[in-house]
């Protein structure tokens, strides 16, 4: 995904990879937590 978005040159940058991995983990964890679809808006 990083290569597709940022290109070969930047995809290997450590800060970018770290941020992407942390974001993916957080998004995944949040998505595992069900909420009532008819529940309150944020």
């Amino acid at each position, binding site marked *: 995904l990083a290569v597709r*978005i*940022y290109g070969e040159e930047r995809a290997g*940058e*450590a*800060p*970018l*990879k*770290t*941020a*992407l991995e*942390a*974001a993916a*983990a*957080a*998004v995944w*964890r*949040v*998505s595992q*937590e069900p*909420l009532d679809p008819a*529940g*309150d*808006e*944020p």
Partner: protein
Amino acid sequence: VTDSTATALHELTASEAARSIRERQISPVELIEALLQRASTIDPRVQAWVRLDAERALAAAREAEKQVTSGAELGQLHGVPFGAKDIFDTADLVTSAGFSPYASRTPAQDAESIARLKAAGAILLGKLVTTQFAYSDPSRTRNPWNDDSTPGGSSSGSAAGVAARLVPLAFGSQTAGSVLRPAAYNGVVGFKPTYGRVSKRGVLPLAWSLDHVGLLARSVQDCQVALSAIAGYDASDPHSAATQPPFVAQPPPSAPPRLGLVREALEHASPRLREHVLAVASGFEQAGAHVREVSFGEPLRLILAVHHVIMQTETAAAHWQLIEQYPGAHQPRLRGYVETGRLLPGVSYLHAQRLRRRIRKSMRNCLSAVDALLLPTAVDVAPGRETTGDPSLQAPFSLVGFPSISLPSGVADGLPLAIQLAAAPWQEAELLGAATWCEAQLSPMPAPPSFA
């Protein structure tokens, strides 16, 4: 100013300085001169100040001195010097946020919090180093306890400056853990009020719904006095709470507090911090406090994931245009964070915001039978300078907006240890009361050995 006088003056807390000035034991001019002299000798090593405003501070001190001698009515912090993290706007004084394109950015107005502290008589001595835009790329500031350890961030200069006795009181800001964690790593008090309690007008944003104005000082009393000056609704800040109950400073409580030891936080901390906090809690119990174990009611990993999704999305929204406008000017971690933050789905952000509401309710329940939560401020002592440290144990309170405070509670391997207390929203008076009681049970934190 003699060397011996200067040594005594830089050790004064903000409240002690205010009292000494009011009672005409010291002059605000000699206090400012002593701190300027100290900056010239100490700061080349600590690098807490990014710029001093010596001329204006001295002029303000001379004016403050005249008011003392004239018998005028004096504010609570009359003549007391303070510093501000360099993301707080200061009138006619550069505010650069560690961002080179802002090297000459000079606001016309003070941030509201700065204006209110000045209205209470305090004198702005200068601006303190921040990590770039208050994110996590380490700054140049050193930890006064150990050159090889991080001072933490993002309020690096604020915490290190207060610890090194360069200034008694400083503004910081916290989006994840940027006030309390540096406070813990540097052995000072760090305090974050309820979200919406203190205006953020004139403070450069990182993530709007998480950013808090906070304070660094050397006593709980100083936080109480400063909060009295800066708290309250501000119509010019959309995040300021219009319906907030007034903050009224209370005398120290007569009864020991009821404290809830947070299970998830103890499990997440290093063995050293876990044992330390359990020992501190045991001491509090022996002194009369009621200590019981409580739970956040939600997994810590979930709380941190929700915080992450919200913070990264909002940071990306606040900063992506600057990255395009000034290519190459951002530090690598902030740049990576913003660039990847732009990819986070809107659905995830809104789902995280809905979960945030549930987490807030659970954490409110966690406080139902206690006056304050008790937990380690940080997972361990300050790590090396390649990082600003781990925000895992401070971020939950930034997420839910509850007030929290870090108190220095010991030293291990030459580095400070700290406990954290947190309370329900708008319960700052109760939190500071519990913190005052706890502070009185703990041994006073000395100055860092090299700067005593």
